[in-house]
């Protein structure tokens, strides 16, 4: 185990950064940045998660295998979003000209079973 500083001190620094990022996140949400609000918040969230993963979850000293596991999981999520996006980004969102009444009103209790 490599400890450059006492671990509590290092963890405290990480926590401080995390809380600062939290403040930045909520603070920037109240500024009119348009589409950059989302971008900023998601980026900040990603940085926070990375800090938790690298320092608190010890990815920093973990084996290549463990790091690959984390990377593969994130990659799979990206595949799910990305390939679904090829559908959603290229399809107009037109409502059907007519919807079944039951679809609009939803199912009633009693007529469908468990």
């Amino acid at each position, binding site marked *: *185990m490599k400890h450059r500083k006492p*671990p*509590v001190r290092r*963890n*405290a620094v*990480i*926590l401080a950064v*995390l*809380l600062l990022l*939290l403040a930045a*996140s*909520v603070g920037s*949400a*109240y*500024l*009119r*940045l348009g589409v950059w*609000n*989302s971008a900023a*918040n*998601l980026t*900040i*969230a990603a940085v*926070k*998660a990375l800090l*938790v*993963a690298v*320092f*608190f*979850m*010890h990815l920093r000293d*973990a*084996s290549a*295998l*463990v790091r690959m*596991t*984390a990377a*593969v*999981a*994130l990659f*799979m*999520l990206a595949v*799910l*979003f990305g390939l*679904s996006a090829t559908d*959603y980004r290229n399809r107009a*969102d037109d409502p059907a000209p007519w919807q079944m009444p039951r679809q609009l009103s*939803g199912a009633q*209790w009693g007529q469908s079973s468990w």
Partner: protein
Amino acid sequence: MITLPVAPQFSTEIQQHRAATLGMWVFLATELMFFGPLFLGYGYGRLHLSDAFAAGSRETDVVLGTVNTGILLTSSFFVANAVDALERGAHRFAAIMLHAAIALGIAFLAIKGIEYSNDWQEGLFPGAGSALPKGEQYFFLLYFAMTGLHAAHLIIGIAILLAFAVALGRVADPVSLSARLRVAGLYWHFVDAVWIFLYPILYLVERSG
């Protein structure tokens, strides 16, 4: 120093620890994929029902949500300390850290409970008979599903930390639990990491009005 016996299928304690660590990370990968569809459903709604999502998000309690985020981040700090401390031999300090994390976890759940109860009062629950516009029902379905699933995982996390906190006080050699606590800590941090993403997407959409 007496260590816990190595399970018979393993040759060495190091092999056992490597297996436990990899096992937990693979499990966390499955948990990430388990949350995945909720994020995709959210993404769809955010794109196609952006106004409703903005309106819905503004109905959430940003103060309580922000406080809860701070609580969880701090609890992760305590768990990380507990793991490091136990590895160094400071098992009493580790127990204190675990109890602090558990307390914060319970606080998170209590605040969440208050939020849910307020949401109910304000008629924000989706479903048959709801007065919410359709798009906002979609938002709140995801809000309750994601935070509810997260809370369920948090409860499990608290139970795990509690088991360790109790064991630290009971076993003859608490430091022998350090490898296992390290693995268990990963679960807690994962639950924290999921919330790190839930917070902005549920609480901070178009807050600037």
